[in-house]
């Protein structure tokens, strides 16, 4: 069965499913009260006095969903949403204050814990595939190129990723080592994603987007959770969590998890086939303690530790003929941990403050060659919010980050000069939210100011507006400036690569030297958006953007010189350095929607379109070439309950072809089936990347000469216990 046929069948099935219950049911008109009901208000401690819909509330139909809720255990009952998420979905990332999607002047999307559980994804990158506008490309089994609104790369540097307020991108290249960003996915409360700049509150690197992963308070993860399973690519996984109470005000949880995953697929002609080198394994443990000394205070202490091996194959530049290459199978030993303390206080209804301190250590030691990278980060952050008059809400804050690293070089391949470096980052921000017309029109202005050791002072302002002509519609617009401040790689890199472009008999090597005078890349972004929830069961969201980038990084090749390899063979050396030579513009839109067409079935989806225009500069070769981003991406996710006690999810994902690296387009499906055996036990089986035995998602060899592998179809199954 071809994927397109399957797509058509799924679409037809969805349409039929939606027509049948829809047309046979009487139309209920109850627009008037659904927004005034405060049931979904995030902070209301007790429901309002008047019961909503007392008269028309009688359940008219018996359905299986109801019976299933009666089968749930009390802990699961505390996790159920009272009303379906939509405009009311809670979001904190946009303004660093509790708000909801309907009020947010930015392109926000929220992945809820229910979506995480039902997606069948086992890694955070796989979850991000389900965010409209996100391009997630797996390079090998443990490396991903992830971005939104363009500039996808394994070393993509314009996306800010945070876990519980802890920044997880590495200052080494301003990107994310995705293989070590993991959690017990069960413990994630939600993942908030902003497409577009979030720099006015989050600072440099929140250029094209912000991913904010928020874990559950430990009072919501009480009891025991256990999950284990295995499959064709998932060689085995097991995870467990226990949550309990220390006293009336204090709860805790501890967790542990382990997995072993197979590598991707390589054609038999590859020198690394048939035993692909990119299999990996990792163990992880952590805890979280939440203490509420008073109703208005929350003190959290949490930490994680992980240890594992991420495999890879690499073709390092060599010293000897005939190929001047050395093929190496390598296991990167990854180890690290973090500890975070946060105290937040709700002073009164409209004012609050929070202070947060964390320490984070990461170690990556290649075992196949010498390269190693150790890093310590210490960070402190404070924020305060208070009302000013009737119409202004001020939020301000400051932060300090210290980072220190040591990089052990692999000669004639990869190193940094100096090998050891410590940097300070000072930042502060202020923001004013103005309610111009009650409940209708809001302005937001703010800016982040930073001082870093590479470029000194940076400012990142934003101006935003939300207009809600009625409670079911919101227009928003924003103009923002964001910068991507230099990383160690921009300033200090020393990299040698085989460079076979020039004619001639001698081997050629590009020797890339970082540029200590590299400036920040900057973005001026224009966005508008529209959200509609015409009826409670249907919600859609459109955002359109035009991004104007300046000072983008490019390669500047200098005059080739004669030299020799470390082995003494004559060679041509092409010195290359970074330069801020390039301008570029991107424009496009993202659409997403969700529709609950019956009490047990719903469909959601996203579609995004982008075009990139690079203004060529003399002699400069742009690092993120045009075509590095697929023009069209979409997904359709059908979720429902085919039979009593069963759950089914079907996801179709399409990613357009990518020009450079040259990757063909692909369409694959993920299917998850789960059955609740009893109050305590659930079994599940998941098929991922179906319809396509193996496909490329990213380059066959990346900029560090690490080889890519193809993503294979897989099936895995397992059991979940909760008690």
């Amino acid at each position, binding site marked *: 069965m071809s994927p397109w046929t399957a797509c058509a069948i799924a679409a037809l099935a969805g349409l039929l499913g939606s027509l049948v219950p829809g047309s046979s049911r009487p139309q209920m008109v109850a627009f008037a009260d659904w927004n005034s009901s405060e049931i979904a208000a995030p902070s209301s401690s007790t*429901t309002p006095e008047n019961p909503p819909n007392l008269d028309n*509330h009688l359940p008219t139909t018996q359905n299986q969903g*109801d019976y299933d*809720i009666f089968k749930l255990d009390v*802990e699961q009952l*505390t996790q159920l949403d009272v009303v379906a*998420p939509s405009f009311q979905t809670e979001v904190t990332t946009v303004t660093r204050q509790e708000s909801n999607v309907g009020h947010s002047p930015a392109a926000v999307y929220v992945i809820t814990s229910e979506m995480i559980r039902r997606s069948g994804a086992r890694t955070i990158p796989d979850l991000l595939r389900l965010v409209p506008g996100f391009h997630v490309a797996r390079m090998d089994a443990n490396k991903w190129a992830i971005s939104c609104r363009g500039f996808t790369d394994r070393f993509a540097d314009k996306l800010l990723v945070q876990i519980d307020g802890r920044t997880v991108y590495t200052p080494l290249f301003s990107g994310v080592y995705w293989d070590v960003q993991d959690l017990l996915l069960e413990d994630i409360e939600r993942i908030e994603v902003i497409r577009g700049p979030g720099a006015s509150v989050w600072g440099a690197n929140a250029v094209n987007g912000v991913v904010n992963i928020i874990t559950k308070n430990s009072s919501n993860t009480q009891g025991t959770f256990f999950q284990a399973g295995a499959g064709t690519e998932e060689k085995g996984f097991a995870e467990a969590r226990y949550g309990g*109470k220390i006293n009336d005000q204090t709860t805790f949880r501890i967790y542990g998890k382990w997995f072993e995953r197979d590598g991707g697929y390589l054609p038999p002609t590859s020198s690394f086939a048939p035993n692909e080198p990119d299999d990996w394994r990792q163990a992880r443990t952590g805890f979280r303690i939440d203490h509420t000394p008073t109703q208005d205070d929350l003190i959290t202490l949490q930490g994680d530790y992980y240890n594992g091996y991420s495999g890879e194959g690499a073709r390092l530049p060599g010293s000897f003929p005939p190929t001047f290459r050395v093929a190496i199978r390598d296991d990167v030993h990854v180890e690290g941990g973090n500890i975070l303390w946060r105290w937040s206080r709700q002073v009164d209804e409209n004012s609050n403050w929070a202070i947060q301190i964390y320490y984070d250590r990461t170690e990556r030691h290649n075992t196949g060659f010498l390269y190693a990278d150790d890093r310590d980060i210490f960070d402190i952050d404070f924020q305060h919010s208070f009302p000013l008059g009737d119409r202004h809400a001020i939020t301000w804050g400051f932060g300090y980050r210290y980072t220190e690293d040591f990089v052990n070089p692999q000669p004639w391949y990869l190193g940094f000069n100096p090998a050891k470096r410590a940097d300070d980052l000072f930042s502060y921000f202020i923001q004013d939210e103005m309610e111009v017309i009650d409940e209708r029109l809001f302005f937001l202005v703010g800016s982040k100011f930073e001082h870093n050791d590479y470029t000194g002072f940076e400012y990142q302002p934003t101006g935003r507006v939300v207009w809600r002509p009625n409670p079911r519609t919101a227009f928003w617009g924003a103009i923002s400036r964001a910068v991507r401040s230099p990383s160690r790689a921009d300033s200090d890199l020393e990299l040698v690569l085989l460079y076979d472009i020039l004619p001639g008999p001698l081997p050629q090597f590009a020797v890339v030297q970082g540029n200590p005078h590299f400036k920040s890349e900057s973005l001026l972004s224009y966005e508008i958006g529209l959200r509609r929830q015409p*009826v409670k069961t249907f919600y859609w969201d459109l955002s359109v953007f035009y991004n104007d980038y300046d000072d983008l990084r490019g390669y500047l090749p200098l005059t080739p010189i004669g030299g020799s390899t470390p082995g003494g063979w004559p060679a041509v050396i092409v010195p290359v350095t970074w330069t801020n030579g390039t301008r570029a513009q991107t424009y496009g839109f993202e659409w997403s929607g969700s529709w609950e067409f019956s009490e047990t079935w719903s469909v959601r989806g996203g579609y995004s379109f982008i075009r990139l225009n690079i203004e060529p500069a003399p002699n400069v070769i742009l690092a993120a*070439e045009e075509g590095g981003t697929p023009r069209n991406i979409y997904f359709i996710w059908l979720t429902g309950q085919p039979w009593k006690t069963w759950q089914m999810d079907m996801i179709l994902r399409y990613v357009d072809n990518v020009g450079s690296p040259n990757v063909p387009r692909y369409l694959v499906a993920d299917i998850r089936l789960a059955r609740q055996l009893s109050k305590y036990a659930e079994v599940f089986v998941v098929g991922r990347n179906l319809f396509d035995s193996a496909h490329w998602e990213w380059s066959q060899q990346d900029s560090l000469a690490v080889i890519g592998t193809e993503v294979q179809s897989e099936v895995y199954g397992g059991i979940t216990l909760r008690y």
Partner: protein
Amino acid sequence: MDPANLRHDTPQTVVQWGTGLLRHHMCAAVFLLFVVSGPAYSQELINREYLIKAAFLINFARYIEWPDLANESDAPLIIGVYQPDPISPYLRQAIQSDAAPRTIQLRILNPDDPAPRCHILYFPRGVPAEVQRNILQTIPVKGVLLVGETEGFLEWGGTINFVIVENKVRLEINASQAQVQGLKISSKLIQIARLVR
């Protein structure tokens, strides 16, 4: 950081405009379909508040021990619900489902009725606070689980109060009151609840 691209620096300019255009039209069509069909086939938003609360009440029968039911597994557990109430239809469904741990009887009560013999008394928030307080003062508390959903319910002498926090149903338990009433609440319930004194 992508020096590998140095090798194939021919810019990617081939655009499949034909298929692209087609796709955009399809998108527009799907988009329209969504916009148009939304209102036409819509229903009331599913508010599961009382469904979830009914499921909790059924679970109380499992995790709470009543003095007069402890040794009689056949005796029915009686739930009384004051009027006006939005929960009894769901409770009926719950009682009929095979999820109920024992025989459960449902009684619909009027606020002016004399104190009834029930194991669980449910006070919907539609009952005025004054009336709730009066009933709570006159009721013989021994062996009765008093469940409410109104702010202040525990201070008036209730045992368990439902609150909605962040769109989720949560419990507040007055453990000392439960002790006075001779009810044994399992640690499982205590774990997921907020204790109020």
